[in-house]
C-alpha cells in the first residue's frame, strides 16, 4: 500500500497551481485534503504523474459573507470549519448540522469542501447538502493559448456540475476554487439526517431537505437531495414538488417521502440491499421533512 512514483508541486499561489495544471499532456491531480486521493494512490487505484498540492494557497482558505446574505467558501476550507465557524452556522445552519456526519474528526480536520465536491462521490454528505441549498461552484483555469487575461473563470449550478459517479464537469486544467451558497430565505427550515453502520461511516442512506412555508403555513418551495440515493449526487425534484402547495401535514410529508423513495435509484452493495436503502430513504425523508417544516414554522 505505497503509492507509485509521482511528481510533486507545492503551489504557493493560485497562479502557480493553475500553471502546474495547465500542461494537460501530463496527468496531474490537485491535492487538497487528500482524504480520498491518498488512499486511492496507496491502493494504486490512481496513478497521476503529478500532484499539485493546494495546501499552501492562502486565498483558497477564506470564508466570505457575501452582501446578499450568502456565503462564499474557499475550496480549501476544511470540513471542521463548517462545524465550528459561527459565520457559517449563522448563515447556513444546514452546513453546520450536516458537517458532524462527515467521516471522523481527524478526516474533517484535513478534508476540504472543494475536494469533497470535486470528488463527486454520491455517498458523500456535502454534495447532497450543497445541492439542497442551491449552491454554485466557481471553476478557474489558466488562460489557454489565444485567450485574453491570465485566468478564465466560470460558475456552474451544482446540479450541472455532477455528471456521474466520481465524474464532474471539471476540465483537466480547471480547479474548483470556491463554492457559493445563496442566502436562506425567511420562512425556511432545513434538516439533515442519515443512517450509517457506524458513526462516521459512509451512510447507508442520507437525506438533506429544505422547506419554505408562506405566511399561511403552505409550502411554497422545497428541495430534497440524497446521500447514496443514486449514481450521482442529485436533487429529488419530483418528491420536493409533491410538497409544494401543500401544508406539511404528516400525510403530505409521507407522500413526498414515498415519492422520494420511489424515484430514487439506490444501488445494492455489501452493506445494504436496494430495498433496504429505498426503505431508509423513505423513513429518513419523512423524518427530515418533518424536522425542516418544524423549523420553518418557528
Amino acid at each position, binding site marked *: *500500500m505505497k503509492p*507509485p512514483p509521482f511528481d510533486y508541486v507545492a503551489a504557493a499561489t493560485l497562479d502557480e497551481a493553475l500553471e502546474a495544471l495547465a500542461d494537460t499532456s501530463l496527468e496531474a491531480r490537485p491535492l487538497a485534503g487528500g482524504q480520498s486521493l491518498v488512499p486511492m494512490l496507496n491502493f494504486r487505484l490512481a496513478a497521476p504523474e503529478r500532484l499539485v498540492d493546494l495546501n499552501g494557497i492562502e486565498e483558497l482558505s477564506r470564508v466570505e459573507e457575501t452582501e446578499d446574505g450568502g456565503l462564499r467558501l474557499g475550496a480549501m476550507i476544511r470540513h471542521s470549519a463548517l462545524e465550528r465557524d459561527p459565520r457559517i452556522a449563522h448563515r447556513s445552519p444546514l452546513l453546520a448540522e450536516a458537517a458532524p456526519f462527515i467521516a471522523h474528526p481527524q478526516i474533517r480536520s484535513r478534508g476540504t469542501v472543494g475536494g469533497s465536491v470535486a470528488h463527486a462521490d454520491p455517498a458523500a454528505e456535502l454534495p447532497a447538502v450543497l445541492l439542497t441549498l442551491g449552491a454554485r461552484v466557481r471553476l478557474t483555469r489558466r488562460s489557454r493559448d489565444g485567450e485574453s487575461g491570465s485566468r478564465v473563470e466560470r460558475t456552474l449550478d451544482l446540479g450541472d456540475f455532477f455528471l456521474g459517479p466520481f465524474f464532474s464537469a471539471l476540465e483537466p486544467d480547471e480547479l474548483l476554487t470556491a463554492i457559493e451558497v445563496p442566502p436562506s430565505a425567511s420562512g425556511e427550515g432545513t434538516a439533515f439526517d442519515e443512517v450509517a453502520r457506524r*458513526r*462516521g461511516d459512509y451512510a447507508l442512506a442520507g437525506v438533506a431537505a429544505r422547506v419554505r412555508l408562506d405566511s399561511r403555513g403552505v409550502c411554497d418551495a422545497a428541495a430534497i437531495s440524497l446521500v447514496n440515493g443514486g449514481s450521482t449526487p442529485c436533487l429529488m425534484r419530483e418528491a420536493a414538488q409533491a410538497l409544494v402547495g401543500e401544508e406539511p401535514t404528516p400525510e403530505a410529508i409521507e407522500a413526498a417521502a414515498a415519492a422520494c423513495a420511489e424515484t430514487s435509484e439506490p444501488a445494492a452493495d*455489501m*452493506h445494504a440491499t436496494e430495498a433496504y436503502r429505498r426503505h431508509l430513504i423513505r*423513513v429518513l425523508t419523512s423524518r427530515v421533512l418533518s424536522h425542516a417544516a418544524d423549523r420553518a414554522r418557528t
Partner: protein
Amino acid sequence: MSRAGGTWVGARVPRNEDARLLTGRAQFVEDVEPPGALHVAFVRSDLPAGRLRRLDVDSARAHPGVHAAFTAADLGPLLRPGAVLVPPPPLEGLVFHARTALPLVRDRIRHQGEALAMIVAESRYVAEDAAQLVEADIEPLDPVVDLGHALDDDAPRIHDDLPSNLAAHVRQTKGDYAAARARADLVLERRFSYDRGIGGAIENRAVVAEWDARADRLQVWDTTQAPIPVRNVVAAALGLSESQVRFVAPFVGGGFGPKIMFYAEEILIPWASIQLGRPVKWVEDRYENFFATTQERGQLHEAEIAVTREGRILGVRDIFIHDSGAYDPYGLTIPINTQCTLLGPYRVPNYESEFRVAFTNKPIVTPVRGAGRQHGVFVMERLLDLAARGLGLDPVEIRRRNVIGSDEFPYNHEIMYQDFAPLRYDSGSYEASLEEAVRLVGHETFARERERVQADGRVVGVGVVNYVEGTGIGPYEGARITVEPGGTVRLATGVGTQGQGHFTSFAQIVADAIGVKPSDVRVVTGDTSDFHWGTGTFASRGAVVAGNAIHAAALSVREKILKHAAEALEVDPDDLELADGGARVRGAPDLSVDLGALALAANPLRGAVEPGTEPGLEATSYFGPPYGTTANGTHALVVAVDPETAMVEILRYIVVHDCGTVINPTIVEGQIHGGVAAGIGNAFYEELVFDEFGGTSNASFMDYLLPTSTDVPPIETTHLETPSTLNPLGTKGVGEGGAIPVAAAFAQAVEDALADIAPGLEILDIPCSPGRLFELLRKLREASTQAGETA
C-alpha cells in the same frame, strides 16, 4: 472464598509498561530498522483458485533498486509444506486430512493472497513498483466459496489427492440422545449460521531478520505470539542450531490468535537475509492482512434440543460444518472448542455432536479470540431461548433450571476437550453469576416497569446469557527469576506479549512472594535469548500457566533469600519476613539485610559454592496443568432498536464473570472490555464478504466494520472469584470470555425489544447486521399479511 492473594495480587496496580507505551518509547517490530535493511513486498494471487502456468519475474529483477525477486523455483529445500501445529485429538473414528501450504506457490493456488513471489528492494515503495512488473499466467479454476456446498459430490476438488473437500470428521456423544428425544415434551430444531471474522489487530504482522555472518548468528524480530516454537521451526528449516537463532517478539500491537500461527514469511525473511547478506524487513500492510493472515469464519449448524415441560434439558443434538479455508495447519482446535463449549454451564445428560470440516478456496482459518467457543455458545443459548418461548418460560428461568450447581464440581461432561483431556470443569459460580447479572440489569422488574417504547420511537429489550470459557491449557510454561546485586528483580518467561499487561500482573506475583514492589520487577517476555522453553500466548493461558510457573520460581527464590538472610543475620529462617526489598527479623525490623546484598553474597568472588547448591538468588520453574481450568460468566445487556431503520444501540452492557483469582482488576477489566468490543463487532458489524468468484469484497477497514469507540458502550463489570483447583494461584484465563457470549445476548435482547412489533422473530444468523434484521422483519410482515389474508 479464599484466594492466593497478598499485598499485590488482587490490587489495582498501575501498569509497569504504560509509561513506555503511552509516550511512544515502546519498541515494536516496525521500529526496528537495522542499517542497510532491504524491504520486501510479496506478489500475491488475486484469484482464489487457479493453476500457475508461468511466472516471469525478469522485469521485476531488472527494476532499479531491486536486489532479488524470489519464486518457488529459488527456494530449494525450503519448498515443502508447512507444519501441522496441532495434531488431531485421539478420538475413535476421527478422520483428519492434514494439508498445509508451500512457502511460495509452485503450481496450485488455493486462496486469494497466496504468495507467488517475493521482491526484495531498497525500499517498500520500489518493491511494490517492481511487484507490479511480475507477470503471472494463471489458469483460473472454479472456486469453492459456499460452505454449504463445499462437501457436495460435484464440488471442485481443492486438494487433488483427496476424494473430496472433507478435511475432518469428528463425532462425540454422551448418553443416548435418541432415547432422550423420544421422551421429551418439546423438541426444537433450527439451523444456525455463525460467522466470525478477522483478528483485526492494530499492528499487522512484521518480520525483520539480520544474519550476522561473522558471529554466525541470526536475529529475528517478529510479531509472533509464540516466539520459541517459531524460533525452533525456523532454525530447523534453515539448518541452524537453535542456539544460533534469537527471536524477539517485542511489544506487539494485538495478537487475538492469528499471530500464534506459523507463517511462511517467518522463514522467507530470515532466509532472504542469509541469501543476500543484508538485514531484510517485511511489514504486512492492511490489505495483505485480509488474506495472508489467518482468520476465523463461518459454521453452519443443524441443532435440536429436547426438554421436559418444566424446561429441563434432556439432550442436545448438533451437526455442523466448519470452514477451514484452503489448508488446516491448526488442526481441529476451533470445531472441538465449538463442540465442547456448546454444553456451557448446563447439565446436558445426552449429547450427540458431529462435525465436518471443509476445505474452501478462502484464506486459512485458525483461532481468533474465542476460537469457535462463541459459535457453540450461540447455538446453545438460542436453543434455550426458543425452548423457553415454546414453553412459556422466562429466558432466565430456563437457565436457572439447568445450570450446574456449586456442589457439583468437579463436573465431568464426558467428552474430550481441545487439550485432549476430558471436558471437566474444576470449579465455577454458575448460579451466582446468573443471579448477580439478573439483579444488576433489573431483569425481574424490567418487563413490568420499562417504557417499552421510548420517546424517540425506539423499543428496548434485555438479554441475559451464560458462557463458560475453557482456559489455561498445557502443555507448560516456565519462568526464571533472578535477584540482581543492585536489588533489581529480573523475571524472564517465554510467552510473548501483545498488550495483556504481563509486565505488571507477572510482576505482582513476584512482588508478593519476595517482598518487593511490582515496579521493582523487570519483566522480559518473548526473547528466546532470555528464556527458551515454552509454547506461547494463546488459549487464555498466560496468567494460568506462565503465572503459576512464575509463582513457583518466586517461591524457590524466596527460599534461597531466606536461607542466605538467615545465615547473614544469624537467625532462624522462620523468624524472617520479606518486605521492602529486604529480609528482616519479625519484631525487630532493624535487624535486616537488603536483597541486593544477599544477591552479592550468593555469588561470591572468593570461597567455594557448596556442593548441591547454585550461585546467585535465581530459580527456574515450570508449570503444566493436568487439564484446562474453566472460567465462567453471565452477560446482560439492554438494547434500543429503531424498528423503522433496524438500527440497534446498546444502552447498557453488564458483565459478571469469574476467572478465579484476579491478579489485577484493572487488567482483567481491560481484557473484558476488549473482548466485549470484539463480541459486539462479531454480533453486529464484522463480516468477511466473498464474491461468487471467491474474492474478498471488503478487504479494508472502510468496508470491514470493526466497532469503534463510539459503538462500544461503557461496560459494567463485576468480578466473582472462585479459585481454580488446578493451580496454586487459583487463576483462570479471561482473554476470550468477554467476546464469547455477546452475539447470543444481543440476539436475545433484540428479539425481546421487538417482541410486540415482530412476535415470532428469530435471530439465527450472526452477524445480525441491520440489513439482515430488516430482511427478517420484512419477511415476518409478509408472512403475517399472508396469514391475515387467508384467515
